Every structure is written in C-alpha cells, then in structure tokens.
C-alpha cells in the first residue's frame, strides 16, 4: 500500500489490502441433479460475475463422494446490460450428485 487509509482488525493487523480487489458474495445456488436455471442481477450492472462449482455430495461415503462428479454447465452473460448466470446439467461420473454454485462478483 503506497497511500490511503488502513483499517485494522482487533489484533492490529490490516482488515484489507488497498492494492487488491475484493470479491463479494452474491449467492450460493444449490442445483439438484437434473435441474437447470438462471439468475439475473440488475442491481450489479457494471460488475463482473464469477461462478464456480463444488460437489454437494452426501452419500455417506467419502470414497463415493470423491469418485462422483456431476458436471454443471455454467455461463455468464451481460446481454441485458447486467450480469445473468444460467446453468444446466451436463454429464456425470458415478451417480449424479447435487452441486453448489458459488456466485461471486467484483
């Protein structure tokens, strides 16, 4: 940080670094097997949106959870002047599992 304000946590370390961008939470979507959907965010016009996926497996077996992969096709568009995220199910390895979509913005 070359100049600017510095805000500290209670232990005296910086809460954030002025030289780096932040990532904001938009929402986490739980996509069940076979589903598709979309979300629009007109309030985030001008922002860049990212979406990543993590398996939400809950078979009770960590080995089965590791073996399974459910692919979710995710796309982000700005055609309407604001970000919109859509998703659909693709292929699977093992039994189709629910998937959590992390939608973030910066």
């Amino acid at each position, binding site marked *: 940080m070359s100049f600017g304000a510095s805000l500290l946590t209670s232990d005296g370390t910086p809460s954030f670094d*002025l030289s780096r961008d932040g990532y904001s939470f938009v929402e986490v979507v739980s996509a069940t097997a076979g589903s598709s959907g979309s979300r629009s965010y007109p309030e985030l016009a001008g922002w860049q949106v990212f979406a990543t*996926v*993590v398996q*939400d497996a809950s078979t009770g077996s960590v080995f089965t959870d590791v073996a399974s992969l459910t692919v979710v096709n995710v796309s982000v568009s700005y055609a309407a002047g604001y970000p919109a995220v859509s998703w659909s199910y*693709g292929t699977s390895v093992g039994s189709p599992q629910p998937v959590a979509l992390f939608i973030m913005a910066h």
Partner: protein
Amino acid sequence: MYILSDNGRFIASTSAKSYAFVGKATRTSISYTSEQAGVGRRYYYYLSGGKVTHTVSTIAASAGTAKLQFDGSCGSSTTFTWSLSDSSAIAVYEINSAYRPLVFVRSTANSSGAVASIVLVSGTLWRITVVLGYSARTYVDSVELYCFAPISDAPSGYGIALYGADGSVLMHTGKKLLQPAASVTVNSATTDGSTITVDYDASTSLSGVTKPCVLSVDWFRASVTHKASDLSRALLSSSTYGCYYSGCNVAKLVTQRVVSLGFYVSGGAVTFKAASVSTDAPIAQCSGGQAAGTSLYHSLVTTPLPVTLPVIDGAFYD
C-alpha cells in the same frame, strides 16, 4: 458506498456482502489409500460345469500376501504377493461457518490437495473432503485449507462497518476480507490413460505472493481401467495349475481410479499436481474368449473449460 483499491476497483461496497476469512479448516480424519478398507482382497475361484466363478473377501488392508484358492477339479491353492501404492489419501476437514465456505488450498512441492466435496453436516458445521497427494506421509500436514464465507455477524467493540439497505452487515473491519492476489486459468485437460495433461496460465503477479493458495473447485475426474494381465495369467494359467477353463481363460483385474488436482505455486511459477486415489478395489472377473493383454481404457470428464481460479496469499490471513 464503496471502499476502492489503488486501481479504482472496489474492495467492499454496500451492494453485496463481502467474503471474509472464517479460519483454517481442521483435519478430523485421514485415510491413506494403502489402508482403505476393502483394498486388500482375497479371490476364490471355483470351477463348476466348465465355468469359472469367483468370490471375493476382504482381508487386512496392507501390503502382504493373499491366497488364491482353486476348487473343483483344480483343488489347489497358491499364494501371491501384492502391494499397494502409498502416495495419496482422502482427508476430511471441518469448519464452522454460517454460510457454505469457499476453500483455498495451500499445496507445497511435496504435497497437494484438492477439494472433492463440501457438505453441511449439522447446524453451521461443514465437512470438506479433500484428496491429498504427497511424496511422503510426513508432508500431509503441510496442506492447509483457508476458508472464506460472507460476513454474517455484527461488529463488536470498534471499527468500521458497512450495512445494506435491509440493515444487514455487509462488511466490517473485525474480519479480513477475501482479496485474491492472482489467478490461474485452466484452459484444457486431456489424458492418454496414464498421464493427465493440463494446460493452464498463471497470473504474472504470482511472484509477489509469499504463500499462494488456490481456490479449489471441481472441474475434472479421470477414470482409468486397467487389464492387469500379468497377474491374471499367472493366477489362471493352465500350465501352472493344470486346469482348463473352458470359455473362461482370462481373468481381468480392473482398477478404477479418480484423479483430482492441486496447484503448487512457488517463486511465481505454477505447477500442476495430480492427486490420484484408487476408489475401487481390484475386481477379478472372468471373461471368455479374450486374450490377456495390457489394454487400458480411460475417460476424462471436465466441467466446461476454461475456468479461472483465484489465488490468495495465505500469509495475509495467518
């Protein structure tokens, strides 16, 4: 209201909740692949009516010996030596978080980790399943999981906070905010069945990151099927055992593997680290009319690529 960075982009705003550091996940269990229940198995082959069938029973899961027993007209048994590789493990971590956490993994030159799933166990307790790859078991402890989640609690004591229109806390200075320092973009992944090739680009700003941790998300699984012909031939060789298996002269050993990934970042360079783990015990099968061989089948499933993975500097959150 916005708090902007030096380059004019926002760090936090009143438009959305900020992601903040929750803590490092705690490892609660680890299962080395050489010690997975059911990996060591004993195979019994029975000759009946000119056909060979088999049953499988689980034995102690460690390298050693197992007995192959023939019944029927063969009436013999033999003992063979088997071993299991010890280069990967599945570990379970836990973290308390009001929201589903984003997990950044700190890998090293001798160990790597990849998140396979994140599941809510109860209340605010999340279970994170991680595939670990390592050169020696002493290195598994060096894998660290940095967890981030939207701010959910109110500030206490002092500091600055941002509130949304609905009165909810969006950011406060009691928390360290998620601020990626760099990124890795995965362009493609391919496999020929024995190796995984990943094409990726790393941000040039990685050189200034002292403790890089990469966001771990699911983006591919590779499954590989082997015909372990050498072992099969030895076990069912008619010349060795004096048996003739009509219509059933080849036994295949099928090993299914899943490969996940981690990234090791050091000195501004990114290295892809495959962390593979056997997820199915060898299965002996009897298949008529097939010649023994070393055929190998493989498949690779990925999420749509490219995908960009943020990188944080873990040192900022230690």
